[in-house]
């Protein structure tokens, strides 16, 4: 039985949540739906961690759907990089679901709860599928699954604040443009190579790398996915979507959606296309690097002026994505591994912060800064979570945020890019400003008269604190994340979608 699970682990990590979504609808009861979706996410998490431990030395797992061998058939391909992302997505998804059970009671009409769980687990399936698949067109299909369910989830915030509708609509339009660009880009490289398998593409592209079709495909893929990643000038959809969606959805989106899109960009830039292609080096130097730096500062400045805390965190996300892109533009193993570490650390930090803000919204009904005056005494645990999460966002030693900034800086040192290293520190100082504004309001201002706010219920505090403790644990014991990211970065930088050895899972032969 155990061998059954290990032989089909890449598939089951996707199919179990995929099965959970329709089951939620068939049973039509919100408690049953919660149990089903939570168990599915937990099973998916267990399988992801199992695969991560299997491939953390650089092994590659390959699973052939329908028994059709790639490049003709669709393949699920797990290496260190995407096993890491799979674990992040499934862990956050599981915690966000456990958090959702209480948090959506004040945000979403009760008759929609079942559909909420179905949508949520569908979005989860989509993000996991994008990450695990080794087939370019399959990425697009799963991307659409996750995006369409995300638009619905964001729009569900409309019962509390009607602006969620326009936020969801913005996201729908821009997300669809992004997905369209991406699929047109895929069309171009399919036309040039005649294959859609990522590994096969990486073998065929080098010999035709100076063809205009291939370069146009690259541009379309990077811009399309860039919209999903929210690379600086393409981030228009992000603040609205994060601000007005229900708390649990904000947690899940902020911690996973952009990370998965960023993973796809990394996969295409380094595995499918190679960093040795002349046009790609130029793209990094003259497009991605400047945009990353602008994002780090501009978005952080905007964050410092926000009154709505969720919006502030959303802009902070745009700025943090800048760090990850900066890591990629450094174009060495340390830089890419820094991007992966930061993906992980930012996911747990931002997830925790959005959970803590969600707890405040749950009690006070508002995410506006002035309404939080003096909550430090009334909601001590939630406020403490914001402080610790904020410290990690700034990058104080002892928290997860420090680890990734350290890796990024040493990557910059290795290329002798001293100014870049300084800019990383400088932009962290802006993070001090916007985090301090919140801390000041929470602890140093007197609460409004006759306001009695209770501490958030345990069902919200426990997932929040699991993530907060994770930021401290992974800040103190950084080896785990760094070693996995370094292995991932090493194999990614080699180009291609290979590893130490390729193990074909599932049932072989007929």
């Amino acid at each position, binding site marked *: 039985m155990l061998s059954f699970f290990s032989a*089909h682990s890449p*598939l089951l990590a996707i199919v179990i949540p*995929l099965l959970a979504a*329709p089951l939620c609808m*068939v049973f039509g009861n919100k408690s049953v739906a919660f149990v089903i979706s939570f168990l599915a996410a937990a099973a998916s998490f267990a399988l992801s961690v199992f695969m991560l431990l299997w491939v953390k030395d650089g092994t590659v797992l390959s699973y052939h759907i329908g028994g059709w061998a790639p490049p003709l058939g669709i393949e699920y391909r797990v290496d260190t990089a995407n096993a890491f992302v799979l674990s992040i997505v499934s862990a956050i998804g599981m915690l966000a679901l456990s958090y959702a059970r209480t948090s959506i009671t004040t945000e979403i009409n009760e008759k929609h709860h079942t559909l909420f769980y179905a949508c949520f687990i569908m979005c989860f399936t989509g993000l996991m599928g994008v990450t695990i698949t080794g087939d370019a067109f399959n990425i697009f299909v799963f991307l659409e699954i996750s995006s369409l369910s995300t638009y619905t989830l964001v729009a569900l915030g409309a019962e509390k604040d009607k602006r969620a509708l326009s936020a969801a609509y913005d996201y729908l339009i821009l997300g669809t443009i992004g997905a369209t660009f991406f699929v047109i880009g895929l069309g171009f490289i399919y036309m040039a190579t005649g294959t859609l398998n990522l590994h096969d593409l990486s073998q065929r592209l080098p010999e035709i790398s100076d063809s205009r079709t291939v370069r146009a495909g690259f541009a379309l893929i990077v811009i399309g996915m860039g919209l999903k990643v929210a690379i600086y000038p393409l981030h228009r959809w992000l603040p609205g979507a994060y601000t007005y969606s229900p708390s649990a959805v904000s947690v899940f989106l902020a911690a996973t959606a952009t990370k998965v899109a960023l993973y796809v960009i990394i996969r295409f830039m380094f595995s499918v296309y190679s960093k040795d292609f002349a046009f790609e080096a130029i793209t990094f130097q003259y497009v991605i690097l400047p945009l990353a730096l602008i994002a780090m500062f501009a978005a952080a400045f905007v964050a410092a002026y926000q009154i709505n805390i969720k919006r502030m965190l959303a802009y902070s996300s745009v700025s943090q994505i800048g760090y990850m892109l900066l890591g990629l533009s450094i174009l060495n193993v340390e830089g890419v591994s820094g991007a992966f570490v930061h993906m992980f650390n930012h996911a747990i930090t931002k997830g925790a912060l959005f959970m803590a803000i969600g707890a405040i919204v749950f009690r006070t009904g508002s995410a506006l800064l002035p309404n939080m005056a003096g909550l430090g005494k009334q909601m001590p645990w939630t406020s403490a979570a914001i402080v610790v999460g904020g410290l990690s966002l700034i990058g104080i030693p002892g928290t997860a945020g420090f680890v990734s900034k350290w890796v990024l800086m040493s990557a910059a040192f290795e290329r002798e890019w001293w100014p870049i290293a300084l800019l990383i520190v400088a932009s962290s100082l802006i993070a001090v400003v916007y985090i301090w504004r919140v801390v000041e309001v929470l602890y140093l201002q007197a609460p409004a008269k006759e306001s009695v706010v209770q501490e958030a219920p345990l069902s919200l505090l426990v997932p929040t604190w699991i993530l907060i403790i994770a930021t401290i644990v992974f800040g103190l014991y950084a080896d785990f994340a760094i070693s996995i990211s370094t292995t991932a970065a090493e194999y990614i930088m080699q180009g291609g979608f290979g590893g130490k050895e390729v193990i074909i899972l599932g049932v072989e032969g007929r």
Partner: protein
Amino acid sequence: MEHHLILRVVTKILVGPILLYGLYVQFHGDFGPGGGFQAGVIFAVAFMLYGIVFSLRELRKLVPDWIVHQLIAIGLLLYTCTGLVTLFLGGNFLDYNVLWSVAYKGQHYGIIAVELGVGITVFAVMLAIYYAFAGRPPQLDDKDW
């Protein structure tokens, strides 16, 4: 549409053949052009035509919302469960060969089951979209904002 005699009569004549054509496309999908997606759309078109001519209210009596919602889920379940059956019969996911003693027959039945799942879901989603658009309240009041 009470007074549109021609429309009503023509609709009554057309609905049957459209449904039949939908089924043809559905079950022809494994041999030639066609398949679940197209069939689901064609099948839903027959219902929409009925809804447009004989009013949405009549159609909703015929196919209530809850059935449409369940059908969306059931189609996907059919698809996924076909995959799981092949998994438990000792193949990879959606490896239809193991469904029957002869491999090509397994492929045949497997694709029919999967396409049926696709067809049901597409049909139900099309109808759900039609219900959502046709049945929405005429306008948002200013106070709703």
